[in-house]
């Protein structure tokens, strides 16, 4: 499986959960903590992210950066 991960800007996130329902791997969840504006924010819950960028595409606040293992060059 392709290995990826996400970095979520917790102070920008508004906890809308759109990334959580868009994730095919069910890798994301809302935090228990709240950020300065009072929102629970999205965070990785499992280490099974594939770096598919679906979450980043639907995030209205552009809070997500996605990383992925480079494809093997032949």
């Amino acid at each position: 499986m392709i290995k990826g991960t996400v970095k979520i800007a917790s102070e920008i996130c508004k906890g809308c959960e759109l990334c959580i329902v868009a994730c095919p791997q069910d890798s994301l969840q809302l935090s228990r903590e709240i950020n300065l504006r009072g929102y629970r924010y999205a965070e990785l819950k499992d280490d099974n992210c594939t770096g598919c960028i679906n979450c980043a595409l639907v995030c209205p606040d552009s809070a997500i950066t996605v990383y992925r293992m480079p494809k093997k060059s032949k």
Partner: protein
Amino acid sequence: MEENVLEGLECVYVKPDTLTDKYQHYCPGCGHGVVHKVLMEVIEELGIQDKTIGVAPVGCSVFAYNYMNVDMQEAAHGRASAVATGVKRVLPDKYVYSYQGDGDLAAIGTGETIHTVNRGENILMIFINNGIYGMTGGQMAPTSLPGQVTSTTPYGRDPKKIGYPLKITDLLANLPGAYYVTRQAVHTPNAVRKLKKAIKNSFEYQLLDRGTCFIEVVSNCPSGWKMTPVDTIKYLEEEMLPQYPLGDLKVPQNN
């Protein structure tokens, strides 16, 4: 995230630089942010940041110029396409777009909208259809659905009394001035990918000078619809899309 977690991984998605770092005032889950983002991604990818001028509307996206890092002009309510007409005619070498909600484009600005497209102005018009007036507190828009409860239709919109959803995009597609007319959405990753492609095509068509490009984006308004953002996805899919089916309404002819 610790650096070691990222070791060996490459960045495959990052917010475009053409979007400012300013915190957006939109409600959680609002589709405006998604459209801003893909629009700015396209401008970054095409390398046209210094050649693009946007026109912002009155409505929730009235502050779009705070987020879109291109030259922008604010227009009076409903008049964005008329202002964009002026900008493009004075500066024909710039890429010009207008960005408007449904209350702006399809209610108070209906006249300007129709005549801009009828003149075939060489601009891109982006139309955010969330079926409601978001900014002013969730009043009925011309695009509201039959039966939709809004603050001005507390018993649901009754088409017999106050008309049917105005499919202004369908009307515009019939005008000879329209070059490319399409209806896209923001509710799934794939919809966002297609929206981005439509925006990219539209900017490329602007070089051809063949007429107006018009993109309707079926969007959401969690606050006005009084739903959680996640619930708006289902509503958009099940209630909005049957009235506003996605796809191209007019595709460019090669001549």
